[in-house]
């Protein structure tokens, strides 16, 4: 039991080390086996932990293990310690399980790639860092994982490094998230001086005693943590890196930029929720950020032509839902949506990857089509994912988790009608862009030939994920249909209980009906626009104003343009004019003046006697005059 916990992050780390140092000498199959096996073993350890976790005495579920003192200096100390409670266990399970499936899938997807071993080495390093992030018992170690996943994200976005555009996307991702991370680091400084430690649990236990409700210090710390969270989770205003991050191989997008890393911000806020509970203003900020982000990204997803960019914007939008839920205090609902999202979004990305793989790296939606018959497994699994993403009522996991969020936004005191309206509108958009994707890719006429079919390593993970994307919602049923709360019970030792569970049942039913109607009408709208009457859409798009809006949404609301203008251009301008270092000019100026002076004095040495005599006499007279006048 004790070392099982350590084993979870250790296995992927070991895999990374082996692949890095011996990778080139190993045959591809062995390398793949190490890459997948290490994550598989981590998954098995995690699953065996569940058993131990539940059979232990009911209280003191949480396990805290300290391995060594990382650093102790002048009153500051941090440990290498892991902390396991239901929240981190959930994260570990999702990360290792989905990570394992995606690793298996990658065996097929990356089979013909030169960088096969490098790919698995980076992926293993990622899983390691992510596990450290979620298991860390102190914020400094969490920060290590936090930056570690950022590094792996950088390495994997730029995996095909021959194309400079990929490198640009990779650096953009790293640098933009680092802006947020820097804010978060300052948050850690303040937390340390407030509590004398960075141990998460002791901070969280003491915060309600040390800080007054609504105090400014709680607000400042919460906002700084949110800075880190919005960077990692691609929320406003740091969301710009995620669509570009799609430059990486598709399994990477599935694992890092959909299922796990991008939800680290959600995890951070959920983990530190006692701090947020002390600052209603900060919570409201989170909710507002979430709502605006989910809408902006939803509109952008509507008009993208690259299938992966649609999914990227949809990820931003879905994480927006999670932020909204966090902001209204729906902690358990957030984590529930995180889990279902991890399954269905990984599934959608892997499905998209299978399509891209089959169409010889074609990513443009408008050059796909008619794949329903040719790739049936991909089609049906993708459909399952799409149903879950758009939250089709009753039959999808996404419905149950999104419904919980909508209901909480509606009913909890921190929610309000504006947020609720935004969430409902977002659900409508989600249904449209999801089924736009389905219709364009799988329906209609074929526009690109299928060059190869996905193998067993790719289809099996798809099927498994599809089952989860449909069925995992059943572990948490709303009061209107069964009131079964396995997930909520599992989480209840972590999060405070919300009061709404005891109110009347009819408003909840109403919310469910409303969202169902909205989602189905979104689906119908997609059918109308992309299958039945595509000419109507074409006519709409030919209007100049619509065209402008289309372009604006397509470019992600002009954020790149704005940041380019505000930050990049001034930097490049400064760099251009000051490449030679203006400070240096001061010193060379001094040197020049000395040289000039020297030349001037040299001029007096003419070799003509009469000048010397003249100078001597003039000097003598001057001195005499001075002497006399004194």
């Amino acid at each position, binding site marked *: 039991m004790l070392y099982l916990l350590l084993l979870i992050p250790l296995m992927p780390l070991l895999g990374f080390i082996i692949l890095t140092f011996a990778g080139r000498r190993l045959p591809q199959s062995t390398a793949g086996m190490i890459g997948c096996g290490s994550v598989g073993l981590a998954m098995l350890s995690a699953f065996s932990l569940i058993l131990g976790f539940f059979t232990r005495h009911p209280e003191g579920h949480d396990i805290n293990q300290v391995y060594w003192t990382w650093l102790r200096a002048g009153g500051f100390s941090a440990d290498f310690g892991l902390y396991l409670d239901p929240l981190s266990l959930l994260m570990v399970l999702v990360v290792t399980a989905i990570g394992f499936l995606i690793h298996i899938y990658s065996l097929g997807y990356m089979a013909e790639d030169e960088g096969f071993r490098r790919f698995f080495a980076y992926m293993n390093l990622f899983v390691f860092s992510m596990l450290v992030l979620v298991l860390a018992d102190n914020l400094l170690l969490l920060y290590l994982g936090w*930056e570690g996943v950022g590094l792996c994200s950088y390495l994997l976005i730029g995996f095909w490094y021959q194309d400079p555009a990929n490198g640009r996307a990779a650096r953009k991702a790293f640098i933009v998230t*680092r802006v947020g991370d820097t804010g978060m680091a300052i948050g850690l400084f303040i937390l*340390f001086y407030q509590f004398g430690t960075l141990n998460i649990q002791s901070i969280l236990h003491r915060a309600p005693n040390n800080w007054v409700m609504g105090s400014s210090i709680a607000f400042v710390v919460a906002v700084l943590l949110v800075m880190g969270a919005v960077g990692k989770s691609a929320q406003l205003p740091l969301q710009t890196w995620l669509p570009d991050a799609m430059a990486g191989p598709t399994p990477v997008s599935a694992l890092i930029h959909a299922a796990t890393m991008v939800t680290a911000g959600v995890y951070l806020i959920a983990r530190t929720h006692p701090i947020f509970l002390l600052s209603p203003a900060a919570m409201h900020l989170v909710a507002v950020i979430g709502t605006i982000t989910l809408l902006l990204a939803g509109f952008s997803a509507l008009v993208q032509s690259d299938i992966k960019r649609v999914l990227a914007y949809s990820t931003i939008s879905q994480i927006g839902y999670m932020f909204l839920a966090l902001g209204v205090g729906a902690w358990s609902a957030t984590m529930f949506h995180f889990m279902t999202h991890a399954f269905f979004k990984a599934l959608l990305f892997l499905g998209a990857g299978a399509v891209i793989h089959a169409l010889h790296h074609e990513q443009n939606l408008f050059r796909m089509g008619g794949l329903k018959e040719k790739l049936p497994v991909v089609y049906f699994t993708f459909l399952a994912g799409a149903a879950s993403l758009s939250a089709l009522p009753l039959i999808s996991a996404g419905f149950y988790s999104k419904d919980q969020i909508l209901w909480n936004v509606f009913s909890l005191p921190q929610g309000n009608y504006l947020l609720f309206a935004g969430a409902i509108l977002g659900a409508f958009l989600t249904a449209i862009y999801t089924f736009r994707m389905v219709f364009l890719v799988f329906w209609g006429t074929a526009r690109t030939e299928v060059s190869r079919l996905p193998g067993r390593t790719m289809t099996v993970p798809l099927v498994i994920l599809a089952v989860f994307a449909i069925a995992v919602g059943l572990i948490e049923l709303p009061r209107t249909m069964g009131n079964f709360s396995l997930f909520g019970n599992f989480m209840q030792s972590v999060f405070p209980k919300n009061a709404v569970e005891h109110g009347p049942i009819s408003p909840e039913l109403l919310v469910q009906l409303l969202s169902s109607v909205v989602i189905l009408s979104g689906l119908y709208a997609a059918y109308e626009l992309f299958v039945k009457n595509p000419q109507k859409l074409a006519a709409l798009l030919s209007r100049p104003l619509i065209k402008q809006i289309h372009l604006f949404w397509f470019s992600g609301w002009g954020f790149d343009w704005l940041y380019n203008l505000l930050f990049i251009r001034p930097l490049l301008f400064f760099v251009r004019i000051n490449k030679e270092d203006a400070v240096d000019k001061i010193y060379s100026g001094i040197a020049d003046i000395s040289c000039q002076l020297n030349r001037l004095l040299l001029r007096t040495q003419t070799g003509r006697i009469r000048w010397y005599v003249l100078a001597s006499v003039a000097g003598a007279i001057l001195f005499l005059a001075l002497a006399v006048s004194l």
Partner: protein
Amino acid sequence: MILFWIVIIPFIGAVLSWFSAAKHPLSARWIAIVALGIDLILALSLAKNMMGPPHPQSTASLWAAEISWDWIPQAGLHFHLAIDGLSMVLVLLTLILGIAAVVASWSEIKDRLGFFLFNLLAILSGILGVFLAMDLILFYFCWELMLIPMYFLIAIWGHENRRYAAMKFFIFTQAGSLFLLLAILGLYFLHGHFSGNYSFEYQDLLNTPNQWPYSLLFMLGFLIAFAVKLPIFPFHPWLPDAHTEAPTGGSIILAGLLLKTGAYGMLRFVLPFFPQDVQLMAPLIFVLAAIGIIYGAIMAFAQSDLKKLVAFSSVSHMGFVLLGIFAGNEIALNGALLQIVCHGISTGALFFLVGALQERLHTRDLNSMGGLWPVIPRLSALTLFFALASLGLPGLGNFLAEFLVLLGSYIVTPIITIIASIGLVYAAVYSLRIVQQAFHGKPKGTPMISDLYNREAIILGLLISIILFLGVYPQPVMNLVAPTLQQIRIKPVDATSPLEPAIIVKRDVLVIKDHS
């Protein structure tokens, strides 16, 4: 006696390798390595003793080893060497980077090899002397001893613009040294005037009474010399030229060690000698440190000469050292010390790698590189590693160093700290640019070049393991320097000390913690 040997062995090696180089170039190189290796073993054996039970908190026992011979006793001059944890860490750094510098020049330097090795090892002797001297005139002597061989190193074996760079380096540092000499003499007379004991002993001068305005002037004298060496923001222009034009071994020593003598000087002399005046100057220094961090990082990004890029990144990183030293509490001081070590290793390694690249490609221009990863994967991966160290990736020592500096200085000067931490973003910008432009992208008609040789890989592997070790378990280093840093911080015991408020605030926090 062991300290004497530690200082003198590199010099003996220097002479021996000079003589043997003409006949046996290879054996000359090996003599240099062996001399430094023996020295390293000596130092390590001493370090092992120091790791033992903690010292009692008296000043006398702070020194783990000490020798003091009369030099000119009438003038209060002694050949006095002593070592404590702080010096020990820097001695070890010196010897490791010294070996790296010899290896880096293995195939680069063929012309006048003997004289090259002589200069290289003489500099190391000088640096070791600086870190060990406890007599201020001896310190000054060693301080100057580093300078002249370094001048030769740049002027003889440097690159295109070497004369200019060597002259600039010499004038800048010499101008700074002049102030140092004046300040040492001033302090000597001030102390002698009050105590009747005219002495250049470090321990004696520590007790010099605080005399306005003399102490401020003397403090400025010390500070300017160290500020030029470190360098502090407006005094930095010598650095990019010297680092860029120097041969690889010279760049490693410049960035890894020579800059650190400035930081060492501040820790050893400025803070303990002039606690009040440090407080007076601190706000200005903080501003300069922050400017240096940001400006150095942006200027690093501006460069297309790879060596110049790394050189400017040093300006940025030294800003953190400066910030940590003047923040003055134990957390920040620990951070500064760790930064000194980690920057020495990581930047030394980066210069090593850039030198290796230049030897293979005959260019340092980033714009003419590209797509080198598949050609030289080992060299590329190692450069990526040290670029990541330089941008402060957690898990590597540099991260802990910068984290501690910022953490410690936050309580002293929050606004400056926030500005300084923006430098972390720019560090990512310029560090990743190296990797992108040199190794990623499309190959630009690269000729067949060889990857790292084994001797290069071994020494870089050693540096990597040090950085990793310091990143996950820096405690041995922290323990070594703890007694000294406590002294440096506690020295000004009077209530007006600049360093105390931070500590008091911190203690308050800790008290609150204990009660709740």
